């Protein structure tokens, strides 16, 4: 199987969680085990554009318990004999092999996944800065030879790019170092934030320079945070920025 596989380097590994939960898009070739009309196939594909139940397959890297996954869309593309080509947008952790099997069951003739290519993983889209292993090896060698940092930017993107779809809260310089030490974000530190933040949802805490400080769990919605004068706004989950990047602006009991 081929396609988009975001690779997180060194410290950027800490954002992997945000990528795992992000949505994916695939182009898939499904092979039917019997004959079915195109109308019937299209109708059945539409039925799966829904919240579906899936039990992870035998060979899976997660616990095999029944879980629900959202299928945002299934776009039928073409059909040739028993081969069906479609595009599917789905929640992270959806097994397409399983989806094909289940589509085959509903069709009655059975089906399996023949080919799969991932065309999107969260904010990473095919064709937008996608590089092959060869590109990585070649340009990294060129960078080492020439020392021009522009070359590095051809193959590597800042980890902040991976957080493009996570709602953000921008904070004051003076609040940054406390977060880096694991403190929760309080209302006075908030400068601006994005709409559609729900209580308990994942948020990214950013500086005004656009640097990621931490991943956190929102403790209130956008509207609530806007009207808050004090109190906790987000619970820090994963610190991304090293301590001491910004000056310490909080009082400790020892001084």
């Amino acid at each position, binding site marked *: *199987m*081929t396609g988009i*596989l*975001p*690779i*997180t*380097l*060194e*410290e950027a*590994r800490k*954002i*992997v969680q945000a990528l*795992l939960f*992000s*949505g994916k898009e695939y182009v898939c070739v499904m092979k039917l085990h019997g004959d079915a009309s195109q109308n019937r196939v299209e109708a059945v594909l539409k039925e799966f*554009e829904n919240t579906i139940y899936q039990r992870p397959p035998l060979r899976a890297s997660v616990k095999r318990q029944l879980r629900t996954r959202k299928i*945002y*869309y299934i776009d039928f593309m073409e059909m040739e004999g028993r081969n069906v080509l479609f595009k599917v947008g789905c929640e*992270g952790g959806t097994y397409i*092999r399983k989806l094909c099997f289940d589509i085959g069951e509903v069709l009655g003739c059975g089906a399996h996944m023949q080919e799969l290519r*991932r065309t*999107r*993983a*969260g904010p*990473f889209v095919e064709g937008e800065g*996608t*590089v*092959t*292993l060869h590109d*990585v090896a070649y340009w*990294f060698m060129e*960078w080492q030879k020439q020392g021009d*940092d522009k070359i590095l*930017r051809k193959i*590597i*993107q*800042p*980890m902040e*790019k991976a957080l493009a*779809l996570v*709602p953000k809260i*921008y904070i*004051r*310089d003076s609040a*940054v170092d406390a977060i880096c030490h694991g403190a929760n974000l309080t209302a006075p530190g*908030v*400068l*601006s*934030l*994005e*709409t*559609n933040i729900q209580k308990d949802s994942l948020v990214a805490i950013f*500086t*005004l320079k*656009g*640097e990621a400080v931490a991943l956190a769990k929102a403790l209130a919605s956008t509207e609530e*945070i806007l009207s808050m004068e004090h109190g906790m706004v987000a619970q820090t989950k994963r610190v*991304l920025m090293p301590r001491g*990047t*910004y000056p310490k602006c909080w009082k400790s009991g020892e001084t």
Partner: protein
Amino acid sequence: MPRSVPPWETKRQLVVKAEDKTNPRYGCKPEDRTAKDYIKYGVINLDKPAGPTSHEVAAWVKRILNLQRIGHGGTLEA
């Protein structure tokens, strides 16, 4: 059943709660990081080839870039 909106189609606006400036002496824009930090806080939008597993591909990148630690977002089976 209405089709639910994928995360990449969700529109968000930025709303301002308070105004403040950032001190240029501390931190820097992600694109202005030194090469060493740029790699350390970097992500590669890789097109995985057919054949090797996601873990193998990640291990290759790690070796090519001569890094200590590496991760990947979402296994794409071999």
